[in-house]
């Protein structure tokens, strides 16, 4: 495995009895990137991440991390990963401080200044007992444990479940900071906007298979965009409909509307030859791309 590939899933299959939760995943996580694993509940995201963490043993195929087998060399692999489980359960009768200290002792110690800084950013009171914390605050404790670890790779399974928007914003800031310091982030989510804002690259899972993989820009580029143009001097309707990528074109006097599927470049070149008053291109949403591409994969 080349040095820039931090993690590689090679034909990963995981069955639970008759259910095949993961059906042959081939995927690579590149050093320094933020890779979003996107898909609805039950698509195999958590199973994939738990195989990487050595919590599940692949039925077939391999998971390699940092150049070694993640199943047989789990201790060495986990030493370099900060992980947030999707189904987060924390011990109840302990304070946040005690829990962080305990996990710190298992990992060779945490930087207390960094701990306090992250706790302050997440607005987390570590002196409270875990049993008195809300779901969101428990999730903050898990976020703190992942980010304070200083690991090379963060594996975050549905990391913002239960967090309010302000803390989600802070989470994204922490991800960007970690990335800027060279940390690789592999996060799963069914929240498209979160992945859209956080990830460089996206892999979409459906029924245990990677159905789409690409950069966020790719996905957005493949998304349909609604466009609206007001012409000073409208071109012939036939010329407009001949532009590649335009779907449902409608010219009504000087107002032209259509949906653009594919690259926008041919349309821009066409408009350059016209006299245009206003041009409106709606921001393509990853959710639209996701749904379109999901439909394509069916």
């Amino acid at each position, binding site marked *: 495995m080349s040095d820039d590939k931090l993690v590689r899933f090679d034909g990963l299959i995981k069955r639970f009895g008759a259910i095949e939760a993961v059906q042959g995943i081939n995927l690579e996580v590149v050093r320094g990137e933020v890779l979003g694993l996107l898909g609805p509940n039950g698509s195999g995201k*958590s199973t994939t991440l*738990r195989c990487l*963490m*050595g*919590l*599940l*043993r692949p039925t077939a195929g391999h998971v390699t991390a940092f150049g070694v087998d993640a199943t047989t060399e*789990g*201790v*060495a692999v*986990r*030493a370099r*990963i900060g*992980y947030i*489980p*999707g*189904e*987060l*359960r*924390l*011990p109840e*009768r*302990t304070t946040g401080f005690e829990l962080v200290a*305990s*996990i710190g*002792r*298992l*990992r*060779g110690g945490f930087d207390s200044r960094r701990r306090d800084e992250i706790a302050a950013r997440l607005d987390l009171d570590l002196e409270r007992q875990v049993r008195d914390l809300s779901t969101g605050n428990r999730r903050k404790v*898990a976020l703190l*444990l992942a980010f304070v670890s200083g690991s090379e790779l963060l594996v975050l399974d549905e990391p913002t479940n239960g967090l309010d928007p302000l803390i989600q914003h802070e989470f994204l800031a922490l991800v960007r900071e970690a990335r800027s310091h060279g940390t690789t982030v592999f996060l799963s989510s069914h929240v498209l906007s979160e992945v859209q804002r956080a990830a460089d690259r996206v892999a979409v899972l459906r029924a245990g298979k990677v159905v789409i993989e690409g950069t966020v820009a790719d996905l957005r580029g493949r998304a349909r965009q609604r466009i609206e143009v007001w012409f000073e001097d409208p071109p012939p309707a036939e010329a407009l409909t001949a532009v590649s990528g335009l779907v449902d074109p409608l010219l009504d006097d000087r107002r032209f509307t259509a949906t653009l599927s594919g690259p926008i470049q041919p349309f821009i070149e066409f408009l350059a030859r016209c006299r245009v008053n206003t041009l409106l291109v709606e921001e393509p949403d990853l959710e639209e791309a996701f749904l379109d591409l999901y439909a394509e994969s069916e």
Partner: protein
Amino acid sequence: MGRFAELVAIPLRAMRRAVLWWSVGLAALIAATVAFWPAFRGTSGISSAIDQLPGGLVQALGLQDFNTPAGYLRGNLYELFIPLLLTLAAISLVMGQTASEETSGRMELILAQSVDHRAVLLARAIAVLIGLTLITAAMAVAQLVADGLVGLAIDVSLLLSTIILCMLLGLFHGAIAIATAGAMARPPAVLGIAIAVALAGYFGAALLPLVDALAPWRQLSPWYWALGGNPLITPTEFWRYAALALPAVGFALFGLIAFGRRDIASG
């Protein structure tokens, strides 16, 4: 503190209340039982009633020599209640720190750290061993103090060996629970299998001697290994300790190996 020490400390912190309550409960049971000895010693009614029972039944219930200090303690505490309660304590502590923790998802955060999964289970087995030792120590202190207060003259070494045998019987069944928890993340199975073995062992040791042809089979029972030598009266042979401790180590090792080879249940 090293990583393994922390792995032991985590379940110890989690079970400290349970260990405290088991200690208080068993010490209170012992103290209360011993407190009735002076009143019992002066009556002959119960001894006469026991004399009316068939010999086999008296033996099965551990009521022989009930009017002596050793017979009184055996019949009231060490024939059934103390070994059974220590067994239940060991099984419940094991279940609480293994299968229940795993299926609830609380173990995942620990198992996702740079630790060997077998070390996590081993640490929990050691934590249960420490917990059961503390409970047993509390029992022994309560027994010795109460004996001194009411003048229950009984050999201290025989008493301690009896208590240790009861603890080993509990650990034996706790180790069966560890073996089950290592093999599968199913709390009902962990509880059910260990309790079924404990009850089968008790009834085997108590009831098989009632039928002459079946009597030799009682030697297969862990209860017979522990208490069949009448340890409150007769010094215990070394093999009885080994017969309980060695299989317990074997069961625990089986659990560790199985745990290292299987999937971890999620919450």
